[in-house]
């Protein structure tokens, strides 16, 4: 899952990026509205966190422009202005939730997770895929009572596929969403991640939840259910 952070305060920008990366997200950062809008238009994002008081272009305008251009990823407003007037204006501009400064890192993670699940159509943080149970909050995968240990990137790939069930996801889309913009990408690595993920969640190759469509990409068979 790839998240854009548009925040002009460099200290806060750094700690936001740190919190989110620790939580397993790919994070792009920008310090002003115009650049933020450009990233929002150009990058394949899953969520954006936008501060309202931005140099260059106000946060509200960034949100409006993104929505005008049919960019549908969820947007979380980060604001020091806690007035309902501002919240309502932000939500009317097209944001999906707001977080007032100073926020708890835990609350930030909870809101981001909830928005990502909501945009995938999952209301609950626990979902089932055949015999598998996935806790999207703690980012753990269980088979019955046993936990399946996944590496960060294996989990990122699995999470992205879970959030886009029944859709063909190409290798380049996967790499775009799990890596940040300036990361060194190699689509062969994705094949390696998917192979390891398959072996871990379906060691017998019975269920085969992730299909390979030759030359096109991957698809999650049997959409996951919420518990």
């Amino acid at each position, binding site marked *: 899952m790839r998240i854009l952070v548009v925040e002009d*305060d460099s200290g806060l920008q750094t700690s936001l990026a740190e919190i989110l990366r620790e939580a397993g997200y790919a994070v792009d950062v920008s310090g002003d509205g115009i650049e933020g809008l450009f990233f929002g238009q150009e990058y394949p994002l899953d969520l954006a966190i936008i501060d309202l*008081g931005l140099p260059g272009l106000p946060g509200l305008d960034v949100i409006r422009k993104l929505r005008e251009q049919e960019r549908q990823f969820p947007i979380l407003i980060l604001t*020091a202005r806690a007035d309902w*007037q501002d919240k309502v204006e932000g*939500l009317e501009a097209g944001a*999906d939730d707001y977080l007032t400064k*100073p926020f*708890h890192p835990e609350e930030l993670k909870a809101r981001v997770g909830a928005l990502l699940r*909501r945009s995938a159509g999952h209301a609950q943080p626990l979902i089932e895929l055949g015999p598998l149970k996935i806790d999207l909050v703690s980012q753990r995968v269980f088979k019955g009572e046993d936990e399946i240990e996944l590496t960060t990137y294996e989990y990122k790939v699995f999470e992205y596929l879970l959030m886009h069930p029944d859709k063909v996801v190409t290798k380049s889309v996967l790499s775009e969403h799990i890596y940040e913009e300036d990361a060194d990408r190699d689509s062969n690595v994705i094949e390696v991640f998917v192979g390891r993920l398959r072996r871990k969640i379906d060691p017998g190759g019975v269920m085969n939840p992730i299909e390979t469509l030759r030359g096109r990409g991957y698809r999650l068979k049997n959409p996951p259910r919420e518990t």
Partner: protein
Amino acid sequence: MSIKAKQKKPFSLRFRLVVLAVLLLTISLGLVGLALDSAFHKSSEAGLQARMESFVYLVLAATEVSDDGILVSAEEPGDPLLNQPGSGIYASLIGERDRWTSASSLGINLPEPVQIQTGKTDFTTASDETGNYYTFRYGVSWELPQGQMLPVTVTIFVDPQELQPEFHAFRSGLWQSLALVGLILVLAQVILLALGLRPLRRISEDISGIESGRLERLEGSFPQELEPLKRNVNHLLDTEQANQSRYRNALDSLAHSIKTPLSVIRSSLPSDGTPKTVAMENAVADMQHLIATRLQRAATSARSSNATAVDVKTQLERLVASLKRVYSQDLINIDVMIEPELAFYGEQRDFLELAGNLLDNACKYGEGQVRISAQKLDSKDSRAGIRLQVDDNGPGIAGDEREELLQRGVRGDERVEGHGLGLAIVLEIVSAYHGEITIDQSELGGARLNVSLKTR
């Protein structure tokens, strides 16, 4: 008694103008009356003089002089007034050796007639000197047979009483018509004032409209003389508004700039739960709470007296749409029960803040069922204020906790975000609007918060 009460209230413009107009009219109409009166007097006297002259000729025509210079009245003078005693018109003739008086002067004590030179005439108005008669004298010479000349003076006396009825009639007619003219002019003045002062009344109505929030500025066109006033009032309103938004922006940016470093502090704290970290956490929470409540207090007290009407239904629908977006995964149902056209005559920001926090709490602590209703505080006076009720179906608030919760909110020392901070802001607004807040049991099963706000 205060000094203010001692101060005399200045007279109204209308009173001043009417009194001045009446004074001016009285003086000018009085002068006109006096001038007309004296002109009439003069012309009547001129008429009298001509009439007296004709009496002179009547008397002369009836007079004969004997050869030795004795005045002989040949016949009665041609006018009965000269023969009727006490008629008010008397004639006398003075010769060298004798004199004659008309029959009308019988029993009247006429002043002693005086000779004047032949060929001269002399008219004097009635005064004490002439015994209070109008006097006309005419000097003639009679040629006697011996070639001698006999100087004779004819004097006509007219009693001023003769002219009085005429003067009386004229004067009463004059003053009556002048009084009528004066009355008409005063009435016209009152009407003119009413018409002329109408723009002033309109401007004062508009200003009270601004005060009550019906208008935002002085619009409409006013007479040229009032345009500067209108401009100045509008300028004042703009300045006030600009000041207000400047203060608000200053406060806002102050809060903004403090909250960002606070966020950095909070997100840099390790989540190890050591006493040091907890103390830091609490300090940050206290600062956050202080900023939020004090900022609200400042924003609320900077409220202007000329708030415009806020449509309650529209604003609540905005809030509900926003909350549904935020709580979309919780499937919250919010019922809005508002009479249409209910208006709040305060700051829109305050209303959104109050209703937003109340609804947010209800969404947070309820089980998905929220109801908000609102009514006028006084059914007869739509500007008096509004009453709001917010219900939820959550666990509710126990009776003994209600008072404590409100008290904590007032003290502003509640660290837990949620009911604490939201309620503290609600309490700030309620106290700024001199309203009341109570907590009840809702028929939905949870808590019901009753809030009233006064806007008068």
